[in-house]
């Protein structure tokens, strides 16, 4: 088996120190990291387990928003009623990750920092305008989640930095979000395309604010401001949905692989953006 050093710090500062000076890797749920270590794709000399740091597992409400500890497994998110009510799209995206067993371990922050272009929770948290609180030797900084992944498998984090928590903003009235992905089967597969939509409506039902993000159609998940802008002021009539579809397709820069051709991915990105927008709109109308 692998020869390495394992530490489980009980404070964030200790974790930062443990990450400094070497080939160290952060461990949250391990559902990516341990698979990659086993295949030899990554060979850390040290594992820094975050799960013993107080607050790293759990969800707390703060100033109307939610703070999700970086190592919180998907199953815990699904059990948090207030979070599910406020951010159903974020939770459904996180709960799509893997099986029940994987849900017992896999975290949103791990999904984000693994930097797979197809990571399911990432378009949803980007659309939610979530912020990652990053801590390192130089202190803390807050980063919009779309700025964490920079290329497949690569993040903007310094070697001694890690994500401490994910913050979801406060929810006004008439707000709703949704995430949809396309996979060849019903469970346990990697997204061919993913689409997250987050809407806030005016009292008259017109779209006041719209955020659209796409996964698996570019080297990193994309925030697509043009797609959001395309439906502002509308009540998601057919013309608005057509504009959304076109803007989503225009943002795609996908590859072709065994799961889908580039053309297919572009087409489906538009379709899923429409469908997710309709679900988000419905939820916002009822919220």
């Amino acid at each position, binding site marked *: 088996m692998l020869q390495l050093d*394992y530490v489980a710090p009980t404070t964030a500062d200790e974790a930062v120190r443990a990450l400094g000076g070497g080939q160290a890797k952060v461990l949250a749920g391990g559902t990516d990291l341990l698979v990659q270590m*086993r295949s030899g794709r990554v060979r850390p000399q040290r594992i820094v387990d975050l799960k013993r740091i107080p607050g790293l597992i759990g969800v707390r409400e703060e100033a109307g928003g939610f703070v999700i500890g970086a190592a919180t497994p998907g199953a815990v998110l699904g059990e948090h009623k207030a979070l599910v009510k406020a951010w159903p799209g974020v939770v459904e995206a996180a709960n799509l990750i*893997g099986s029940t067993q994987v849900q017992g371990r896999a975290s949103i922050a791990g999904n984000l920092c693994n930097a797979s272009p197809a990571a399911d929770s990432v378009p949803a948290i980007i659309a939610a305008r979530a912020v990652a609180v990053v801590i390192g030797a130089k202190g803390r900084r807050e980063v919009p989640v779309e700025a964490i992944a920079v290329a497949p498998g690569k993040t903007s984090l310094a070697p001694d930095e890690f994500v401490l928590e994910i913050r979801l903003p406060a929810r006004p009235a008439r707000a709703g979000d949704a995430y949809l992905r396309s996979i060849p089967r019903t469970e346990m597969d990697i997204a061919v395309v993913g689409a997250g939509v987050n809407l806030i409506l005016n009292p008259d039902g017109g779209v006041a604010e719209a955020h659209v993000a796409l996964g698996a159609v570019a080297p990193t998940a994309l925030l697509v401001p043009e797609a959001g802008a395309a439906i502002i002021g509308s009540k998601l009539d057919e013309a608005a949905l057509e504009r959304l579809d076109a803007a989503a397709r225009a943002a795609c820069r996908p590859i072709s692989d065994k799961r889908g051709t580039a053309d297919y991915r572009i087409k489906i990105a538009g379709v899923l953006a429409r469908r997710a927008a309709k679900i988000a709109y419905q939820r916002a109308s009822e919220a």
Partner: protein
Amino acid sequence: MSKRTHISTTVNGDPVEFLSDPGVTLLDALRDELQLTGAKEGCGSGDCGACSVMLDGRLVCSCLVLAVEAEDRRIETIEGMAQGGELHPLQQKFLEHAALQCGFCTPGLLVASKALLDQNPDPTETEVRYWLAGNLCRCTGYDKIIRAVMDAAAELRQARRVA
């Protein structure tokens, strides 16, 4: 060489101690250090569920947990399922419905099914199928497994009503 770590944990209610290299999985520690060979390695990558155990009350793949993570935690394995020589209703129903052939997937499926029934005594067939989507079986075609779980759930509900 890295040094072996001393680990104290609880398995099926009993305190246990063992030594482990930091890179060793909980699955390997259970099988090789503690001789609990019920959990199986089908894939080693989280896909098959044959290694399913409970870790602090949550269903996980023990192939994706490091043994060192188990320090001070609570682990439950298939070996703890039968009580005093009496099979758990799920085990009994798996036998009655012939929900196994080679049996390689069975410990994982039983642990996963028990986790479901402990929190949802009356699942729909769809809920059972989704819950068990991470447990692969190469032999049975799943139908008998699903029927065994549904039947065990019904029996457990009945037993609860009587009690």
